[in-house]
């Protein structure tokens, strides 16, 4: 028996009954096999004109196959399958990183060309070639987003309060279900809704900043409701009961006890909801349009917004094509910065305003 294996192991309590030691690939084996795979991949890709991407692909495939074969020979089929799946799953994650890295790199590379003071201080008024900027679009986006938040936050927050504190029965279930369904409304449909609504009221060809805010609200309200609802549910019931026991009316309990306890989560949720709508393009395209000058009044005519500005700079460049493309990419970069900043702010809110616990 014991001669069959290199290192027989005696199981304690069963004298004289050696079992086969679990044979494993040495730790460095996968590393070595992958290195060999990469080397072979480099050689293979050199046959068709060397490229790094092809080398990595060949290397990953060959290395994985080699590890699978080696593991199958030494460790058996089950272990080999396990290793194969590990490789596949890790690859899936790596593949998902490619577009993210590539996108951020591209936007940075192309967007930094015009990331200058002119871009932030000038509008496109009477600009046909180089120069010009997105001053009008930046303020348009800020105003419309602020207006959207003014509409959405009270409605969303109150609905969340209703769902958590008051709601019961069929109405609650209906609201929960349809709020979920509403999160899936395509943004362009929300834009068409605002268009149809305002067309019925004001007649044809109306374009207003506030239309955009209404369209974005359709997208933002469900997000606010869902995140606020989750946060309010986390407020411990003991706090509410303590408040009732002191004779505090329900509405004051909600306003003075529940909301302050949840304020960090509410802030985070609302900030993330703003981040979700700030980059929306399609609804603004059909409701707000675009102008070259600065219009800061959302109740009077077309406005410029950053996403729509970026879209038109890219798709309808004038004669000085490169100038338009540069502005488009800078606007895209600014959008990403805006969204990322809102995400970071959301994280900071949840860190610094979180209720003190652990007493």
């Amino acid at each position, binding site marked *: 028996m014991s001669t069959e294996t290199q290192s027989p192991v005696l199981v304690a309590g069963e004298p004289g009954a050696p079992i086969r030691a679990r044979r494993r690939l040495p730790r460095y084996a996968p590393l070595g096999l992958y290195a060999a795979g990469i080397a072979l991949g480099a050689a293979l890709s050199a046959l068709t004109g060397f490229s790094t991407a092809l080398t990595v692909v060949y290397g990953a495939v060959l290395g994985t196959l080699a590890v699978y074969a080696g593991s199958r020979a030494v460790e058996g089929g089950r272990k080999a399958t396990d290793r194969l799946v590990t490789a596949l799953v890790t690859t*899936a994650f790596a593949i998902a990183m490619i577009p993210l890295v590539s996108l951020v790199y591209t936007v940075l590379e192309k967007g930094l060309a015009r990331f200058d003071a002119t871009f932030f201080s000038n509008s496109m008024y009477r600009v046909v070639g180089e120069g010009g900027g997105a001053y009008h679009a930046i303020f348009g986006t800020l105003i419309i987003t602020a207006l959207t938040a003014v509409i959405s936050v*009270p409605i969303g927050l109150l609905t969340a309060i209703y769902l958590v504190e008051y709601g019961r029965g069929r109405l609650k279930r209906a609201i929960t279900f349809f709020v979920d369904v509403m999160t899936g409304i395509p943004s362009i449909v929300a834009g068409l809704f605002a268009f149809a609504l305002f067309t019925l009221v004001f007649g044809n060809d109306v374009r207003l900043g506030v239309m955009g805010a209404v369209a974005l609200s359709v997208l933002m309200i469900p997000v606010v409701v869902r995140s606020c609802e989750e946060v309010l549910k986390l407020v411990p019931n003991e706090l509410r009961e303590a408040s009732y026991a002191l004779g505090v009316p329900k509405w004051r309990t909600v306003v003075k006890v529940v909301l302050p306890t949840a304020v960090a989560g509410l802030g985070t949720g609302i900030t993330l909801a703003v981040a979700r709508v700030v980059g929306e393009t399609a609804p603004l395209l059909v409701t707000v349009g675009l102008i070259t000058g600065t219009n800061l009044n959302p109740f009077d005519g077309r406005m410029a917004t950053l996403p729509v500005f970026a879209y038109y700079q890219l798709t309808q460049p004038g004669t000085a094509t490169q100038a338009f493309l540069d502005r488009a990419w800078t606007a895209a970069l600014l959008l990403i910065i805006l969204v990322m900043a809102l995400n970071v702010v959301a994280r900071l809110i949840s860190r610094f305003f979180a209720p003190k616990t652990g007493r």
Partner: protein
Amino acid sequence: MTATKAPTPSPPQQRAVRRLGDRVFAGSAKGSGIFILLVLAGVAAFLVSEAIPALTAPAEEIPGGEGLTGYVAPLIVGTLLGAVLALLVATPLAVGIALYITYYAPRRIAATMGYVIDLLAAIPSVVYGFWGLAVLAPALVPFHRWAADDLGWLPFFAGPASASGRTMLTVGLVLAVMILPIISAIAREVFSQAPALHREAALALGATRWEMIKMAVLPYGRSGVIAGAMLGLGRALGETMAVAIVLSGGAGATLNLIGSSNPSTIASNIALRFPEATGIDVNTLVASGLVLFVITLAVNMLARWIVNRRADFSGAN
């Protein structure tokens, strides 16, 4: 007990001094909830009211001259083609990512990795369009050529290959990247909720990590993955700007993914034509938007129904 209630006049009822503040607050909270339902109904109602002129107009007046069905049908084909392609690419990847983050990644950095994947969802769709046009489409041109040459016998790769790469195939991949975080977020959540006892029991019986996942995690997470995929499908169906920027549209209904002329999608068609549209064109576009609304609503309701059914019976709560 109530039967022995004393006949003596009971002290004045203590309950329910309905304070004004309470009534106002509860009323406004309930009102907001009902308002949301009204908004959803309003979306449908206003779309219908703006679409009616196109629904009743004679066929010749609809752009294209073949009536509303003839106008919308190729768009529906394009919409479904792009979204299904995205779903086929994104779902396996998203499951892999979710498994990696929940069970394979080093514990310390797993949360950060999840956050990085979520960043994909935060990037505005117009920026994805920029990226698809400037990076992905040119990068895929060699693949288009290869597919047309070597896989030409498949209807999807009938060719001739587009020289710009602005095809349905590229759009499908861009959409796949966009819905990846949605599917993987939900998959991650259900995978991490798989009962610890099942997982530990599997490992204790000597299962490898993959066997543990196959036996304890995947069966538990299946409906969650399906629901996540459907939510992603809903998102891909309605995605507008990325498609509008990347796709070179204009063709009728075709399954060819790599041609230089592709069926447009409903949403991108609206975005491209609406700003310049007048008269009956506007109504036609709104009618096509109504079709999109109905499709996505159905997909989303189905997805939510699956999610909720799972929540009721999972035993996780």
